C-alpha cells in the first residue's frame, strides 16, 4: 500500500509540475507573442496539444467532425482528433509489422533480420516481465502485455518523428490504456481465485466490524494502481516534449540567433533522452500492469501479496 501510494503521489506531483510548466510556458508564449510580431509561440505547443488538424510534409488536412453522442446525460464527442489519427496510424503500423513478423516466423524457425528484433522484445516481455511476476499462469496474458508494450512504445516514439504526435502525451489516451489495464488486473485476479475469493480479498481479511473502513480502502486501492499508470505515462511523455519546446522557445524569447546553438544542442540531448524515456515508459507501464496482475493472482490472503511462487 505504501509503495503504491508513493508511486501515486510522486507521479501526481510530477504530473502537476509538468502541467504547470506547460501552462507557464503557454502563458509566456502568449505574452511573448503579444510583444513579438510575426511569430506565434503558442504554435509551438501544438505539438503536444491535441487538435483537429494533421500535419504532413507540405501541408495539413482537417479531420472530419462527428455529431457528439449522447449517452444519458453524458455527451461524448467522438470526432477524430490528431491523437486519434496517430492512435489509429500506430495501431495499423503495429498490426502490419507484427503480423508480417509472425508470417516470416511461420515460414522458418530460424529468425532473420527484423524478426530477430521483434523476437528479442517478445521474449523480453515473456521471460523478464510476465513469468517473473505471474509465473507460468501468466503466459496467457502475454499477448495482452505484448500489445500494451508495443503500442505504447510506438506511440511514444511517434512524437519524436517530425510531424508526428505523441498520443500517450494526452491524458485521455493514457486513461483509456489504464482502463484496459484496470479490467485486465481484475480479470486476472478473478480468473485466478474466483469471484468469491476476489470479493473476500476486498474485505482485507479483517474482522467484519472493520469492513466499512476496509472495503472503501481496498476499492480505492484498486483504482489507484491504474490511475498511477495513467498519470505516470502522461506526465513522462508530456514532460520531455515540454522541455524540448521550452528550449526551442528560448530562441524566440531572446530573439537572438546566438541562443539557438545552445538551445538546439540541449534540445537534441533531451530528444535522445526522450528515445530512452519512450522505451522506459513502455516498459514501466507493462511491468507495473504485470506486477499488479501478479499481485492479484497470487494473494490468497491479504498480507501475503509479496510471496512469490513460480
Amino acid at each position, binding site marked *: 500500500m505504501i509503495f503504491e501510494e508513493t508511486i501515486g503521489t510522486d507521479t501526481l506531483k510530477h504530473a502537476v509540475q509538468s*502541467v504547470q510548466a*506547460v*501552462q507557464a510556458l*503557454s502563458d509566456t508564449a502568449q505574452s511573448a507573442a503579444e510583444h513579438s510580431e510575426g511569430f506565434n509561440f503558442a504554435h509551438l505547443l501544438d505539438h503536444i*496539444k*491535441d487538435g483537429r488538424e494533421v500535419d504532413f510534409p507540405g501541408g495539413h488536412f482537417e479531420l472530419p467532425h462527428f455529431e*457528439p453522442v449522447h449517452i444519458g446525460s*453524458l455527451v*461524448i*464527442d*467522438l*470526432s*477524430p*482528433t490528431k*491523437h*486519434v489519427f496517430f*492512435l*489509429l496510424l500506430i*495501431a495499423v503500423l*503495429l*498490426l502490419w509489422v*507484427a*503480423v508480417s*513478423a*509472425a508470417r516470416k*516466423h*511461420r515460414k522458418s*524457425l530460424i529468425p532473420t533480420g527484423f524478426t530477430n528484433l*521483434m*523476437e528479442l522484445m*517478445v*521474449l523480453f516481455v*515473456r521471460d523478464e516481465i510476465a513469468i517473473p511476476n505471474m509465473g507460468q499462469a501468466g*503466459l496467457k496474458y*502475454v*499477448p*495482452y502485455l*505484448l*500489445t*500494451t508494450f*508495443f*503500442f505504447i512504445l510506438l506511440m511514444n516514439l511517434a512524437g519524436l518523428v517530425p510531424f508526428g504526435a505523441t*498520443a500517450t502525451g*494526452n*491524458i*485521455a*489516451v493514457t*486513461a*483509456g*490504456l489504464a*482502463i*484496459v489495464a484496470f479490467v485486465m488486473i481484475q480479470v486476472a485476479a478473478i480468473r485466478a481465485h474466483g469471484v468469491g475469493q476476489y470479493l473476500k480479498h476486498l474485505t482485507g481479511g479483517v474482522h467484519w466490524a472493520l469492513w466499512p473502513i476496509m472495503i472503501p480502502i481496498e476499492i480505492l486501492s484498486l483504482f489507484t494502481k491504474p490511475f498511477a499508470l495513467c498519470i505516470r505515462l502522461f506526465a513522462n511523455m508530456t514532460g520531455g516534449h515540454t522541455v524540448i519546446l521550452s528550449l526551442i522557445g528560448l530562441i524566440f524569447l531572446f530573439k537572438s540567433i546566438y541562443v539557438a546553438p545552445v538551445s538546439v544542442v540541449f534540445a537534441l540531448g533531451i530528444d535522445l533522452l526522450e528515445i530512452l524515456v519512450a522505451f522506459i515508459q513502455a516498459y514501466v507501464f507493462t511491468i507495473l500492469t504485470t506486477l499488479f496482475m501478479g499481485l492479484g493472482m497470487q494473494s490468497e490472503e491479504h498480507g501475503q501479496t509479496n510471496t512469490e511462487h513460480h
Partner: protein
Amino acid sequence: MFEINPGLIVWTTVTFVVLAALLAKFAWKPMLKMLGEREDQIRSALTQAEKARTDAAEMMKQNEKNLARAEAEYQKMIREGRALAEKLKEDIVAKARQQAELELTRAQEEIQRNLESAKLQLRSEVADLAIRAAEKILDETLDETKQKKLVDKFINQLPKN
C-alpha cells in the same frame, strides 16, 4: 487546454481492445507458439545430444573393455602358444633323441649281428678250407656231413676267442 476528452478515452479503449484481439490472434499467439516450439526443439536436441554423448562414452568404455579383454586374450594365446611350442619342441627333440638312440642301438645290433654272421661264415670257410686241405692231404673223399660234424666238434672244442 488540458481538459480530458472523453471521446478520446473511448477511441483509445476501443482501438486498444481491437488491436489487442487482432494482434493476439494473428501475431503474438503464432509467434509465441513458434518460440515455444523452437525452445522445445532446442531442448530435445540438447537432450538427444547429451544422450548421444553418454551413449558414445558408454560405447567407448565398452570398446576399451573389449580391447583390454582382447589384448589379454591375445597375450594368453601367445603365452599358451609359446608354451605349447616349447613343449612340442621338447617332445620332438626327445623323440628324435630316442629315435636316434634306437637307431644307434639297432645299428650296433646290426653290426653285432653282421659280425656274428661274418664270424660264422668265416668259421665255415675256415672249416671248408680245412676240410679241403684235409681232403687234399688225405686224398680221400669223406662223407661231407660226417666230416663237417667232425670239424664242428673240433672247432667247438677250441677255446672261444
